[in-house]
Each structure stands twice: as structure tokens, then as C-alpha cells.
């Protein structure tokens, strides 16, 4: 590359880094210097939203592990008729606009939806409740875990599983003591990313669960809602700053997991 070419390349890279970095830094600076992180963070609206976000994203994560692990394992290990279709369907929410996910969930579980009337007979109300928040979060975030877990299960050395079987281990024991630990880094990274996606869920939540303080108003929804409120900008900024810090923390953890996996791999193989 010529010196001019290299300079242009470096300049574009610098502009790119600034473009991605500056808005977030401005937000954090405004939150800290403007005092929003102090007083507004302790406001009822922000605390309620924070508590709801922690609770619902934890529930979404639990649903993701329970439903996603078997699915990821089967997709990694078995080829069955139509497995490519299941593979694609599982990945779909990652690329779908969240508003589309919200509408689809509403058409499925809404009171005028495909299953809404049936659920109503059972006395179960899903849309615009905390359950809708959890479903929306699981719908958009589980695919991130499943993708990562599928890749993790695929990389597990089958000979090690066979060795355990030869030693007389049951399938459940092989899965628990050999497969899961060997895929552990990928599973953990997938979980952390899925949690971050669930925590940040906005579009599907506001369409499917609405925006009721203390009930369905999660942190990202509070950012949007308080921005519109009279004198709510500081509370909006405080809620946003919490999300930035959580997202940053998630990326640090994922990085650490990757490093640990890279360092641990030769030892595991050796």
C-alpha cells in the first residue's frame, strides 16, 4: 500500500472509531457530569424499570437455557429431514426487525390472535403483561445462545465422548460431564450475549407488552418513554447510561471467555 493509501486508510479507520465511540461517550459524560446518574437513577421510574429488566431478562435467560440447549444440541449433532429449515427458523429472529417480531407475537398470542382466545378461556392473559416482556425477550435473544451453543457442541471432540461411553458412562452423564464442559466457553459466551440482547430489547417489547410503568416498562422502554416525559430527559439519560454500562460489561465478559477458551483449549486437547 502506498503512503497516501495507508494515510487514507488510517484516516477512515479513525473516523469510523470516533463515529462509533463518541455518541456513547457523550451520553456517559452527560449522565455523569449532568448529575443524571445520581439523582435521576434513584427515581421511582428508573428503579422500577431496572428491577423489571433484571427480573425479566433473568427469566428469559432461564427459558433460553431450558429450551435452547436441547435444540442447539440436536441441530449440532443430528441431520434430519428439514433440519436446514429449523436451523434457518432459529436464526431468523436475529435478522428480523424487532417490530416485526412484536407484531408476529401479537398476532399469535394477542386477544385477537391465533392462540389468544384459547388462552383467554384458560384465564391466561399474555399480551401487555410481564409474560409478554419475557416472551419478547426470549424470542429475540435465544437465537444468539442457540447459534453459539450449536457451534460449541459441533467443536466438541466426539472421541472424548466415546471414551467416556467406553468407560461405562450413561448418555446423560456424558452430556453433563464431557460435552457441556468442553463446549462451556461457547455456551457461556452465548448466554452472556443473549442476556445482553434480552436486556436491550425494545421494539418487540413495546409492541407486544406495551409501556406500563412498573409492569411492562423495561429500561430501554423507559429511555424512550422518559425522553417524551415533561422534564424526563435526565431520567432517560440515567436509564440509558445503565444500559451502556451493562452492555460494556457484557462485552468485557465475552472477551474474557474467549481468551480463557483459547488458553484452555491446548490443555484440554493435550
Amino acid at each position, binding site marked *: 500500500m502506498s503512503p497516501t493509501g495507508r494515510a487514507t486508510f488510517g484516516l477512515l479507520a479513525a473516523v469510523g472509531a470516533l463515529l462509533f465511540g463518541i455518541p456513547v461517550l457523550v451520553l456517559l459524560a452527560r449522565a455523569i457530569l449532568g448529575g443524571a446518574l445520581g439523582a435521576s437513577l434513584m427515581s421511582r421510574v428508573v428503579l422500577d424499570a431496572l428491577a423489571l429488566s433484571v427480573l425479566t431478562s433473568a427469566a428469559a435467560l432461564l427459558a433460553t437455557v431450558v429450551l435452547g440447549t436441547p435444540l442447539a444440541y440436536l441441530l449440532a449433532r443430528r441431520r434430519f429431514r428439514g433440519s436446514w429449515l429449523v436451523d434457518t427458523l432459529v436464526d431468523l429472529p436475529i435478522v428480523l426487525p424487532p417490530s416485526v417480531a412484536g407484531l408476529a407475537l*401479537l398476532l399469535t398470542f*394477542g*386477544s*385477537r*390472535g391465533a392462540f*389468544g382466545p384459547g388462552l*383467554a378461556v384458560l384465564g391466561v*392473559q*399474555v*399480551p*401487555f*403483561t410481564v409474560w409478554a416482556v419475557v416472551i419478547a425477550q426470549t424470542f429475540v435473544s435465544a437465537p444468539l445462545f442457540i447459534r453459539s451453543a450449536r457451534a460449541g457442541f459441533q467443536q466438541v471432540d466426539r472421541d472424548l465422548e466415546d471414551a467416556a461411553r467406553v468407560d461405562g458412562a450413561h448418555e446423560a452423564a456424558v452430556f453433563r460431564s464431557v460435552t457441556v464442559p468442553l463446549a462451556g466457553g461457547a455456551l457461556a459466551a452465548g448466554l452472556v450475549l443473549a442476556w445482553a440482547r434480552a436486556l436491550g430489547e425494545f421494539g418487540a417489547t413495546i409492541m407486544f407488552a*406495551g*409501556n*406500563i*410503568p*412498573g*409492569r411492562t*416498562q423495561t429500561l430501554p422502554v423507559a429511555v424512550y*418513554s422518559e*425522553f*417524551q*416525559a*415533561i422534564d424526563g*430527559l435526565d431520567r432517560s439519560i440515567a436509564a440509558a447510561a445503565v444500559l451502556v454500562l451493562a452492555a460494556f460489561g457484557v462485552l468485557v465478559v465475552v472477551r474474557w471467555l474467549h481468551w480463557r477458551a483459547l488458553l484452555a483449549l491446548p490443555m484440554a486437547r493435550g
Partner: protein
Amino acid sequence: MVLIVGLDGCASAAATPTPQPGGALTVLAAASLQAPFAELKRAFQASHPRTTLTLAFDASSTLRAQIEQGAPADLLVSADVASPARLASEGLTAGPPVTFARDTLAIVVPAGNPARISSPIDLAVPNLRIVVAAATVPLGMYTQLLLERLAKQPGYPPGYAARIVANVASREENAATVLARIELGEADAAIMYASQARIAGARLTVIGLPAGVRVTASYAAVVLKASRSGPAANDFLAWLRTPIAGAILARFGLTPP
């Protein structure tokens, strides 16, 4: 706990003939009502200690759609009469809608008036940035009506409404985001409810409308069929028409029906 409340209820029933109904009410209200309803909530809960109100705000049409899809709320407080009427026709209401306040439309500019707008005619000057509400929400429909009425005024240029449409920088999804945009200095002018402009105070300046041009918005509330606290919801609805509520509404620039 339940027993104590029960005994308490009996005791007060003996003293007063009609015990106050109670319950946890979810009120879905028009985005423009945030400030007055925060105050109404305080006043109502003070005089009705057995009822707690949870308020959620958005465009009335958005709230109407949420109710149609099964949102578990007790009341809709709409910035138009069409949304409650629509819900009534769909069998989703319990009782008739009650109009409890009126508002008018206002053209506002940010403090300092950077585009030097002194009359609604000036909104047609090319390259202004005007913020209005989306045509699907009540404020957007009222805005359309206002522009049509202004266009018919003597001295207004041909194609006035079309020129303003060309100047529209953003169509916001509810009245609150219209206010937020202009307060952040993102526009030269905005069209919103007069009550919102009044609450914003010195941060905005209202541009006078020609005599006789006036668009009135009606706020109507209705108890929803999904409500599980019907008596308390009806109580709140009736309370909205009391002089106490009327005085609070008046302080925020809302007039009686």
C-alpha cells in the same frame, strides 16, 4: 389482613351509606396529558386512599390498538372521541365515553424564534423545519384540520398546506415527542396542543392564529370492558367531571367541555 379489611369495610359501611370502591386502576392516557394527569393522580389518590392509579401514556390511537389486542387496562383517556367510540362499537367498553375537557391547537416556536416566524403564513416559507404529529394520531388529524382552515383564510398563498407539508421535518408518533423535539431545538416551529405549550412555559412561544381559526380537541374517557375494578374505574371517571378535577385541568390550560 383480608379479615381486617373486611371488618373495616363493615364498620365504615355502618357509618357512611356507600363505601368508597377501591382497586388498582391502570389508566392508558393520551401523551399530551402527562403533566395534568400526574397532578390528577395525586389529588385522586389523596381523597380515594383505597385506589391506586398506574398511568401509561402514548398516542390515543396507539393505546386504542393496544386495547384491541387485549391490553389489560381499566380506562382509556383519549385525546379524541373517535378512539373510545371505536372501542365502544367493538364491544370493548363498559359504559359510554365521557368528555371531560377541551383543548385547542397552537403553533409554537422555540424561545428566541430562530426562524423569525410571526404569523402562521410564515410557516410556508421554504426550507423551514416544522415538527408535527403523525396523521394516524389525534393531534395529527387536528393539525391537518388546522392547516386546511388556515389555507382558506384571506391572504394565505395558494398551496399553503402543501408548502407546509414540504417543510415538515418530522411526523412524530405522539404529542409528547412533538414537544420533546422542539424543546431540544430540533425544529423552527411545531404544531401541538395549546395546553402543552402552556406547560412548556418560557421555553416556547405561541404564534397567534387569525381570528376565527380555531381547532378544538375533546378529551374523552371511557371504562373498559377488561376492567376488573369496574366500580373504582367508574368512580374515577365521574371524579374527572368534578370541580376539583376541573380546577386542576384548568391550571394546565384545559377547559371544561
